[in-house]
């Protein structure tokens, strides 16, 4: 008989086909969807994230695991919603206005999803007004802002200021990107800074105090 541990291992190893058969089997055996999420999928992606952070695996290998998790979530998500269970944390993410770089931003989104966050990706070249509109619509706990160019750093500063000026003082703002530093994050009033995608989950948890 299959176990939660088997599902966790299948996700770690990126075995989508196994995940596809294991999830219904485990649900049929009476295990709650929330247990599969909290005891198999999120811990599995935690292991994968840790391996990536320690340079034991590459991004393509991490993404294979992320796709395996997604396979499971396709089945679990409707059941979780039906049971009124929503992700504990909602996150918005986007690259600031004038900047088209999205590899880093996409990887952070993947890492956050792996940690069980509900992630809404606003894409690239996102004006401050769009961030504010999305904050009002989705009421996120955390917002990730990315910039890769020195010339779009001012747009990051302006976006942080605009979000605060619009009265969204409790949402945690996390910034990152090649030219961004902790001191710049402090200077513009962000709540957190992540130097790379691998550290983004830790940085988000620290900002959220969890």
């Amino acid at each position, binding site marked *: 008989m299959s176990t939660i541990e088997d599902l966790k291992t299948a996700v770690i190893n990126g075995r989508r086909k196994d995940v596809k058969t294991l999830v219904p089997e485990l649900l049929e055996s009476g295990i709650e969807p929330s247990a599969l999420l909290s005891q198999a999928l999120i811990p599995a992606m935690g292991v994968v994230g840790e391996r990536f952070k320690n340079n034991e695996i*590459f*991004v393509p290998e991490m993404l294979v695991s992320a796709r395996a998790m997604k396979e499971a979530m396709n089945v679990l998500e409707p059941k979780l919603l039906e049971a009124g269970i929503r992700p504990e944390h909602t996150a918005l993410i986007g690259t600031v206005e004038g900047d088209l770089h999205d*590899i880093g931003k996409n990887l952070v989104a993947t890492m956050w999803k792996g940690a069980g966050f509900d992630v809404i990706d606003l*894409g690239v*070249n996102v004006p401050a007004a769009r961030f504010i509109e999305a904050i009002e619509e989705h009421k996120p706990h955390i917002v990730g802002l990315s910039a890769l160019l020195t*010339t779009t750093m001012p747009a990051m500063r302006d976006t942080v200021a605009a979000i605060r000026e619009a009265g969204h003082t409790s949402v945690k703002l996390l910034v990152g990107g090649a030219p961004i530093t902790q001191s710049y994050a402090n200077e513009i009033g962000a709540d957190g800074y992540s130097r790379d*995608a691998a550290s983004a989950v830790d940085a988000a948890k620290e900002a959220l105090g969890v």
Partner: protein
Amino acid sequence: MKYKTLAISDPAKLIYGVAPNPIETRHGMRIGGGLIYPELNFTLPDINIRKEAMPEIARHYKQIVTEALERAAELEAPGVMLEFETLPPMTEHPALGMEIVNILLEGIERAHGKYGLKATLRCTPNDNREFIRPPVMRSGRYWDAMLELFDQSAAAGAEFLSIESVGGKELHDDALVNGDLRAVLFSLCVMGVRDMNFIWEHIVAIAAKHGVHAAGDTACGFGNTAMVLAERKMIPRVFAAVVRAVTAVRSLVAYECGAVGPGKDCGYENPILKAITGCPMSMEGKTAACAHLSPMGNLAAATADLWSNESVQNIKLLGGMAPTCYMEQLIYDCRLMNTAAAEGEASALKMRDWLVKSDAGLDPQAMIITPESSVAIANAIVASPSHYAAGIAAARAAVKILRETSEAGCLRIDAREAGWLDRMEDELDDMPDTEDAFIEEMMEEVDLEKFTPADYGLPTTASA
């Protein structure tokens, strides 16, 4: 495929400062004619680029050109290329870009009059087409504004026109992070090649109209993205190195359309292109550390005709403003190499070989662009009947080079990367025989929301 043979088939002849097809500038620089010259690139510190900020922005560029060229004159540089790579609003609003072009051209003429300095300008409008998602590649305001800036800058006196074009990038970033060589080949050799043909036909026409040079493109957004991801340990270095070999097929199209060089600095595939076309090339390496890490800081100079710093912000350093300091560094790099070359072919080759040997064994990306590897990959490309076949052939040649040099103990490959050579070889073995068959397969797999097939002359579905 226009090129059937190599302009430089002997690796010993693939060397810095000398290209079979040199280019002469108005003030008498002969690029590829025996000397390697500095090419200075620069950008702004964190300023919001908008019309109201233009006086401050103009002050920055005036300071850059004045002080950097003064330093070049003090150090008796035999010639200098300046590259103005625009920032997005400067291409979107050509009047903003042209204000800077004119400042730089005035600075070049001032330095020529005052010091007799030979300097010239490369204008590189950035490719804004991807600001719309999915990008509109062949029409629209971004396309029109880009062509307008090319046209106006050439009319004003910019002698060289370049671009970092983005055709194919819609799928390439995902291909990289997924380690998907098939998708890399589709992005570069199917989409990229088609877009390059389209865009370079226009650039070459503009250059001809104004009597200036269509210089060259770069697969920066492809090969350098892979290189940087590899340096950050996100993707395997061997994968990034193979991607680099494939980028040469895409960048080659500019020359097939009539570009004459010098190829753009950030195209680390340029040694392969120099072997094929005989056109002079710009390169960047150790003196571009201000912009990004490169695993071939010395080696990149080995076959260069212009030596660049990639880009540096106009900020104050102890020795002066950063572009001025980088001008000085580039001049000293070039002076040493030119001194070696002045002592004769044997000295130049010794210098080149030191540059090559100091990097080649330490990184797969470096090994791919040694003179020997460049000629081998170039040969694989010109022997191919199509760009699709050339992409596969370049990738195969690169895998073979990495495997053989590693097995011979000449290249260090990280243990966890070794399996990727087999994985890539398997993918190449599974490639369809024809491009049509490949396109049909890929159109079933790719995300059609990310690009517009018609902009690439591709069917919207496999059966269409």
